[in-house]
């Protein structure tokens, strides 16, 4: 028995010694790395930066301290080293535990004891290493007094995958003001998730037209199904300034494109028609023709034929291209030939061009 116990304690002591040596070695490695990073020799610093990745979470806070200490080249090197740690942690084949440890370490750099540049860097790196667990620390920065830091926190949430960041943005929207409010609305549009609908729909009731237009655009990017439209508000186009009408027309076009991509053909076609009603700008008309022709050539042919006679060169040319891409059938050929005699010279040229393109395609096939 004593022999067995003795053997056991020896093994424990050996393991403890080995672990201590390992930790001690790692700590020594870290100190050595930090020393090289702060070297007066540029080549030594550059080499340390290049090797920073594997130093991992343990190096993050010390690097943040160097970055915040206004140490010239050493501080710059520390910021770069942080980037490399983030990159290494996110490599294919890296462990989730390692990545989470690094991300958690970055959240410590959000503390006010670190300077603004370091905190912004941490936020940026959290958008490529963070997850639901890191979101609460980022949300806290949304309340910072510095508007740049608030916005960097918003950017971080916008880029961080997962449901927690999306929820954080929707939760923050009602209280947000000024540019941050618009930025959060835009972020929700970029995320493209219908879970943001309620927050955005509420924003369409804002008294600020810019907020309303931003919210409508975000909903368009999400591709809100038509059945939701009774729950949102939109300004009467007649009440808008010219530039705002164009923006609203663009928003409706974007929505129509998204609905077309979702296979909602009828909604898309309605959207293209509505866009042109809102704004008669020629580029809106061109976009409507292009979009509608992709969704339903049959329902767009007549409009394209009329557009061949449009006063504006870009519209005529767009109509011609749309017809060329549609390809020929008997009724379209007949319609073009029928339009030719009464057409102006520029329209006649386009009719001939379309017919030639169709003929060339036919010959090739």
């Amino acid at each position, binding site marked *: 028995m004593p022999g067995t116990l003795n053997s056991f304690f020896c093994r424990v002591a050996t393991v403890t010694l080995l672990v201590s040596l390992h930790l001690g070695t790692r700590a020594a490695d870290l100190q050595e790395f930090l020393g090289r990073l702060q070297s007066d020799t540029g080549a030594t610093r550059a080499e340390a930066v290049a090797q920073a990745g594997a130093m991992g979470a343990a190096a993050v806070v010390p690097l943040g301290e160097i970055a915040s200490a206004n140490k010239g080249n050493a501080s710059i090197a520390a910021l770069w080293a942080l980037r490399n740690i983030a990159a290494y942690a996110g490599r*294919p084949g890296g462990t989730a535990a390692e990545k989470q440890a690094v991300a958690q370490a970055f959240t410590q750099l959000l503390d006010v004891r670190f300077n603004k540049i370091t905190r912004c860097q941490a936020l940026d790196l959290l958008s490529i290493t963070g997850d639901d667990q890191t979101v609460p620390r980022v949300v806290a920065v949304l309340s910072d007094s510095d508007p740049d830091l608030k916005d960097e926190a918003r950017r971080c949430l916008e*880029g961080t995958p997962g449901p927690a960041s999306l929820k954080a943005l929707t939760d923050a929207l009602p209280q947000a003001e000024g540019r941050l409010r618009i930025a959060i609305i835009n972020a929700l549009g970029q995320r493209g998730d219908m879970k943001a609908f309620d927050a955005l729909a509420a924003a369409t009731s804002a008294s600020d037209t810019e907020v309303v237009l931003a919210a409508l655009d975000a909903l368009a990017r999400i591709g809100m199904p038509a059945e939701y439209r009774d729950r949102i508000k939109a300004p009467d186009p007649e009440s808008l300034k010219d530039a705002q009408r164009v923006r609203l027309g663009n928003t409706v076009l974007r929505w129509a494109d998204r609905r077309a991509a979702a296979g909602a053909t009828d909604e898309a076609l309605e*959207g293209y*028609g509505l866009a042109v009603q809102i704004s008669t700008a020629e580029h809106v008309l061109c976009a409507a023709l292009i979009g509608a022709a992709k969704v339903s050539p049959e329902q767009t042919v007549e409009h394209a034929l009329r557009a061949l006679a449009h006063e504006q*060169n870009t519209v005529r040319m767009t109509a011609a291209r749309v017809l060329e891409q549609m390809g020929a059938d008997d009724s379209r050929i007949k319609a073009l030939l029928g339009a030719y005699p009464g057409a102006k010279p520029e329209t006649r040229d386009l009719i001939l061009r379309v017919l030639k393109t169709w003929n060339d395609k036919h010959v090739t096939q």
Partner: protein
Amino acid sequence: MTSTTFSRRRFLARAALATGASFGFPCLIPPGVLAAPGRPGANDRIRTGHIGVGGMGGYHLSFIRDHPGLATCVAVADVDKNRLANAAKTLAEKGVQAKQFSDFRELLELKDVDACIIATPDHWHAVHTIMACEAGKDVYCEKPACCTIAEGRAMVNAGKRYGRIIQIGSQGRSQSAAYYAGSYIRNGKIGRVNKVACWHYENPQGAQGPDTDPPPELDYDAWLGPLRWRPYNKDATHGNFRWLLESGGGQIRDRGAHVMSVALFVMDADAQGPATIEAKGLPPEMGRYECPPKMEVTYTFKQPDWTLYWLQPGERPTEAEDLGNNKYGSKYWGETGTLTVSGGDGGTDTEKKAKEYHAPIHGVKVYRSPEHHEDFFNCMRTREQPIMNIQAAHAVATLCILGNLSWRLGRRLEWDAATEKVTGDDQANLMLARPGRSIWHI
């Protein structure tokens, strides 16, 4: 989408009444629109609005001013008051008057601007181009097209959605030498090409001046625009933004947009996309500039198989010694010979054998641009795609961006050109886009 006063049924009813069209699909062309005042036709002079009038912006302004047969400048916008004043002076030298704006959005609202000439820092290119398309303008935008893959794709989509003409300022493709080299190689004069090497001088190091308050003439918040916040530093702003990864991306993105543009053009490989990208290079040893002074990137392409190298500095081929502008360029190795093209921007040159080559009548035809601005203005009228259209520019920028991404992450990337995603690398895919600062987004 509808307003509180606009139910779907009421909208369709209004449309039907207005146009006499049948119920179901509203008329796309309201009657009044057919009689609207016209945009430039074949013989109308094109009116330009210039966003960003320092550096290359000043060059474009002078060019337009000196070529009144091509276009007329009617408006300028810049966030730097000094540059705006200089622009007004430049135009006044030849009696041209233009409206001046600090906020480019006011310029975009002008109905008498047909095309925007965009020469702002790279991080603004996507937002400016997309917003210009959304305002109905055609666009000439400086290179590189964009800073991220997502930006490039959004620019392509905006051009397609509105049928706009977009020319990116990689003018090397419009040089005669690029045409000759393209014709020579595409007609098989050196056989199948399996290797292309681009050489270019190194990134600068340095810039250790302190951060300060911005100068009074510069609206720094507007200069930053969609770029992640950083303190003002004169070594990171006008002109020098090129040497920081996020704003300029170094030589590979700034100048690769020229040299690799010519390479893709000569190889007729805009639509191909790389299969793998691997970058090597040590970080700078001092200063705030972030891009590796020396860098090597290897791009492999499949079907057809070939390899492209970006070598910084690389080695200038002996064939380039007698060519103009030979501090950078590209060399092509085929089964039966080689060809060297020096430069890649305005001073592109190539070997005599290519210049003297005439393609056979039924050989491969290569598009020949009259001159980069002229090509753009011609295409505004014909609505054909210009030589450095946004699709091609996005393909070039993709190489530049992925080269930097591989370096930044310290690993090889496998690229799926069809989906525009990195295979098996979630973190890399997160970095193909970046949220815009403040209210600016694509």
